[in-house]
């Protein structure tokens, strides 16, 4: 265990805690203040929080591990698809922001509730958002435990590391809510950026420069330098699936969706849309290159997700190793805190508040939100302490596809006046049930994956959801004209100033 790296790491966590607590304590009087930072987030802060929130533990550790196995083609799968997701700030984010401002929305299910006037749609979307976010929180906590164990040469066991991450996040969220979340996201985003660029430089330098690193990796693992990559992973169908998958599921992560509400103006969202691909381009190169270069360096024998810590440790001074590991932590913590907050807001407003109706006063709503932050963090920690398989498998096979099922419903809510509550609810329920059925049948070996024709399951599942949505909407009664007109007037023209 290197004391320098541990000191850097402890200082980093302490800084997060102090900044989150001190800055976040100001002026929190309403749920909008706590959950949305008062809808006053400017363009740069919005960009940082969107990027830091979306780039999770998987970004640092999972990317490098996947690139170690699959190769350079993985950069295209992840970076191009994620860049394309920026367009959803326009297609989805702009209308969500306008609806949020006009109707005072705080949570994603509230948008569906206002659009269709149906508690059923609200609860169905709530279930989907909650179901696929809690395991994702657990993934971030798992990443934290792994990183701390690696950083301290197992002096801090995985379980203790996971608990420490959970504690720090919960602490600053309790006091500052979204404001603390954003301020720490800015710090975390900066750490990620510096760590990624510096880490890339040191690893490349340690391997003799870019050219020599690539040549060494090429001679040891030539399949990583071409399609279909290691294990024949990147087929045309898989390539297409991932490009579309990120577009469909990333904006439907409830913590990303909620960030569309927090923008101070449309200008802030527009700035983020343009800057997002640039950030993605720069950041994603680091884990992919280092993952591939893992084959240029002898001595690595662990699980693929450990290749990035190994390479940085081998090729950098301990100071930078600490910084890069802090960057990895920044990635996972900035995602986990946002997920905790959005889950807390949804359970407070879409579940408790609707069940207790007027009995839940505003002051209590804030207290309940904070209590739920603690409760959800505890649940995430318990799940993280169970053995649930590799990060990559969990994320790809359940969360991403499960959330992509909500994509047709969201597009319909924002663009298709004739869509109905039953159509939206049916598309989500049928999509999820179908996906889970096929998932478990495949897990049990009862059926194989040939039904997807080589695509990721998300593609046929979303097609099915779309067909169900259209069919059921046509056969059922749409919401009243007044409600539809009011909603579309808001999202097409923007709220009255």
């Amino acid at each position, binding site marked *: 265990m290197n004391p320098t790296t541990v000191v850097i790491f402890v200082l980093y966590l302490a800084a997060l805690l102090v900044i989150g607590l001190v800055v976040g304590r100001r002026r929190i009087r309403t749920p909008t203040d706590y959950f949305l930072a008062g809808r006053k987030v400017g363009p740069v802060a919005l960009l940082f929080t969107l990027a830091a929130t979306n780039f999770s533990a998987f970004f640092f550790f999972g990317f490098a591990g996947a690139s170690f196995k699959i190769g350079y083609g993985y950069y295209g799968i992840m970076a191009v698809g994620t*860049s394309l997701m920026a367009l959803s700030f326009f297609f989805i984010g702009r209308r969500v922001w306008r609806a949020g401002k006009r109707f005072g929305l705080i949570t994603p299910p509230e948008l569906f509730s206002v659009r269709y006037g149906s508690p059923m749609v609200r609860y169905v979307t709530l279930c989907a958002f909650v179901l696929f976010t809690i395991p994702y929180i657990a993934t971030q906590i798992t990443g934290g435990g792994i990183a701390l164990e690696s950083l301290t040469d197992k002096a801090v066991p995985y379980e203790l590391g996971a608990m420490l991450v959970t504690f720090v996040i919960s602490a600053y969220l309790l006091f500052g809510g979204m404001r603390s979340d954003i301020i720490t996201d800015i710090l975390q985003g900066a750490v990620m950026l510096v760590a990624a660029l510096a880490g890339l430089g040191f690893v490349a330098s340690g391997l003799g420069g870019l050219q020599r690193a690539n040549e060494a990796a090429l001679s040891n693992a030539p399949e990583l330098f071409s399609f279909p990559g290691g294990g024949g992973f990147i087929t045309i169908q898989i390539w297409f699936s991932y490009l579309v998958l990120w577009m469909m599921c990333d904006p439907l992560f409830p913590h990303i969706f909620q960030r569309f509400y927090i923008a101070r103006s449309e200008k802030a969202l527009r700035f983020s849309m343009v800057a997002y691909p640039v950030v*993605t381009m720069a950041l994603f190169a680091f884990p992919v290159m280092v993952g591939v270069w893992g084959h240029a360096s002898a001595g690595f024998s662990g699980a693929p997700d450990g290749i990035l810590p190994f390479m940085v440790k081998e090729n950098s001074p301990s100071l930078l190793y600490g910084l890069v590991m802090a960057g990895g932590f920044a990635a996972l913590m900035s995602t986990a805190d946002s997920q905790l907050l959005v889950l807390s807001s949804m359970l407070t407003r879409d579940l408790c508040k609707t069940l207790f109706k007027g009995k839940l006063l505003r002051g209590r709503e804030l207290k309940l939100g904070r209590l739920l932050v603690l409760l959800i963090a505890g649940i995430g920690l318990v799940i993280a302490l169970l053995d649930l398989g590799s990060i990559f498998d969990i994320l790809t096979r359940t969360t991403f596809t499960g959330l992509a099922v909500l994509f047709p419903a969201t597009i319909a809510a924002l663009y298709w006046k004739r869509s109905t509550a039953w159509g939206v609810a049916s598309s989500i329920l049928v999509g999820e049930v179908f996906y889970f059925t096929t998932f478990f049948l495949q897990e049990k070996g009862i059926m194989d994956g040939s039904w997807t024709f080589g695509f990721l399951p998300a593609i046929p599942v979303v097609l099915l959801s779309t067909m169900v949505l259209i069919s059921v909407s046509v056969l059922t009664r749409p919401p009243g004209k007044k409600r539809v007109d009011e909603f579309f007037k808001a999202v097409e023209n923007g709220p009255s100033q």
Partner: protein
Amino acid sequence: MERFKPFSGNTIGLILALSLLVPLVIAPYLFNGRTGPMGFPWVFISAVISQFLVLMVCIYVAVFLWKEKREGGP
């Protein structure tokens, strides 16, 4: 009322199609297995190029399609 036409005109569709075609078609089938500057493979370089095209699409959308209502407007 604002008219929403995200795919109006051929430009956005063309650039999007190009951004997908570069890595999808050119890299895997024409340059597959070859390496370019500093030993980077074309599957990687083409992905970087396609990201610039995505950026162009975003700028196009921001400048020409994303219209905001003025302060005090309807």
